[in-house]
């Protein structure tokens, strides 16, 4: 069964300047375990699409199912719950809270999920070690490099074991060497079974994904599979 399923998704903005059709009937299914790159020039509707599947926004019309839930019928609290349990966000600007250490940043989604402090600490530490930053748990964002900050953000996105990792230009603020490390981390996580949808305008980044979806003028103009969904079975360490 598809993790994400959209049918004829439309998003229309009523602005002072007139109606803007940001998304014009997108029907797309993304399977569990896939690694999808969403590409397109600015204004193509890829960000609107991301916001919709990230449950940050509601469609003007059409249907959207995430892990079996009909998202279009949920209220603000229902969306918040879905974002909390099913989705992990990774942003271009990391969006870490500057005042608290890495561990507390990673804990944040668990705070809203209502876990007690002890469970949160353990889980957050596990998540941090998953991205290789366990020993930096008590550093503040300011004391970490850009790549490390993004790793913390990824640990935060993973801490509630969501079914979907949504990354919006995750390498946009990083140098190419660090960007490659982050991309490798994504691939590794994907091999471990995390479904990833990644928005980028960088073709190099797009090549790392298993599937590439290209937007233009609010529609999908290309949907190409680069690697089979179950690529992890072909991964060298799994084949051994």
């Amino acid at each position, binding site marked *: 069964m598809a993790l994400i399923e959209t049918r004829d998704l439309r998003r229309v903005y009523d602005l002072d300047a007139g109606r803007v059709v940001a998304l014009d009937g997108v029907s797309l299914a993304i399977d569990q375990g896939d690694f999808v790159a969403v590409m397109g020039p600015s204004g193509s509707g890829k960000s609107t699409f991301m916001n919709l599947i*990230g449950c940050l*926004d509601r469609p003007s019309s059409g249907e959207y199912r995430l892990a079996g839930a009909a998202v279009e019928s949920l209220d*603000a609290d229902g969306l*918040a719950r879905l974002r909390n349990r099913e989705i992990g966000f990774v*942003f271009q600007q990391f*969006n870490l809270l500057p005042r*608290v250490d890495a561990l507390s940043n990673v804990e*944040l*989604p668990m705070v809203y*999920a209502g876990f007690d402090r002890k469970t949160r600490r353990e889980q957050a530490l596990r998540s941090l070690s998953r991205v290789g930053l366990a020993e930096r748990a008590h550093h503040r964002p300011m004391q970490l490099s850009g790549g490390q900050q993004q790793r913390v953000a990824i640990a935060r996105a993973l801490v509630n074991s969501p079914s979907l990792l949504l990354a919006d230009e995750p390498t946009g603020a990083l140098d190419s060497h660090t960007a490659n490390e982050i991309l490798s981390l994504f691939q590794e996580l994907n091999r471990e079974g995390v479904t990833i949808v990644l928005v980028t305008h960088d073709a190099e980044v797009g090549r790392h994904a298993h599937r590439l979806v290209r937007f233009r003028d609010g529609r999908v103009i290309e949907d190409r599979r680069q690697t089979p969904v179950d690529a992890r079975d072909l991964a060298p360490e799994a084949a051994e």
Partner: protein
Amino acid sequence: MRLVEAIRSALSAIMANALRSLLTMLGIVIGVAAVIAMVAIGSGARNLVDSQIRSLGANLAIVTPGNVTQGGARLGAGAASSLTDEDAQAIRREVDGVVAAAPFVQGGAQVVAGGSNWGTRIYGVDLDWFSAREWDVADGRTFDPEEVRRGDIVIILGQTVARNLFGEADPLDQVVRVRNVPFRVIGVMAPKGQSAFGQDQDDVIFVPLDAGRRRVIGRNYAKDGSVGSIFVKFANEEDIEPGIESMTQLLRQRHRITGEQEDDFSIRNLTEIANTASASANTLSMLLAAVAAVSLLVGGIGIMNIMLVSVTERTREIGLRLAVGARPRDIRSQFLIEATTLSTIGGALGIGLGAGAAYLVAQLAGWPSLVSTNAILMAVGFSALVGIFFGFYPAQRAAKLDPIEALRRE
């Protein structure tokens, strides 16, 4: 999010902008300090008045001699005494609700004991005095009825007099001389403290009425049986007004004053005077508290202002929190708790400052001041309420932010 954690995170947000938070709190600090200090000073003033009422004795009226006309010349009040022992007895006998009518004479006197001497006020009293003034001896005894009847030369000292004449030594059964008359000390009064007019009420000596009249004070009391004034104590406060009415009738009759003729005495309701003073002290403290409450309001507006700034500054943080699963109400309570924490800390600082100021005033002005637990609880509650009230709008604004917009904000 649990409350304790929410408060902890609010504290860290407040500490992140320590100076700004402190300046924001200042309004609340000053407001609460003003409330605490004003209420403390006000209730101190009220307590002072209350204790004066108590020191006077409750439900008391005083009959004093009035104008006396002698040969066409109107002499001032108290120039000559028109009141007598019999007037007091008649009042005790005939006026309803009277529990004590204490005639007394007073004057100044130099008391000598051994090598030391002391100038003080002397009162000639009968037994009713002690029950009317609700005042008793601490050591020794009061007069017995026989001593009063015979006018024996025995004396009871006030605390101040006893201390000045005898120091630490026991004055009982010692002899003191007043106008060369040797009085035997039979008792020392309980301490009473200051009067409404700042007089030391313990700087006093008591002798039996007749002893005072005949041997010590003399003057206008030469006419046998006349007294300076009469304290009249009633059983209940409601008895005072009708009691004064019937005393007036009784005394006019006894003094043969008829028709349009002026009273040769006057009667004052001391309890009423005390109540009026107490009420005005109350009004004063309410007024001061109201002024202080206005400054709390101003402090609240300061908090609202800074919370709005904070919401704007932290728009991205709010967007992120929404993205990772905060519900609008989580955001709202976060900012509400922050505003409330801010105002409550301000309140706590204000209590400290206010209590300090009240203490200082008490020390400087010699005024009793009392920081009551009630005032503290009220100040804490009120400052928390200010935080909730003025934090609500900014918190609501934060909660209504669109996560997409908020995340995009620089």
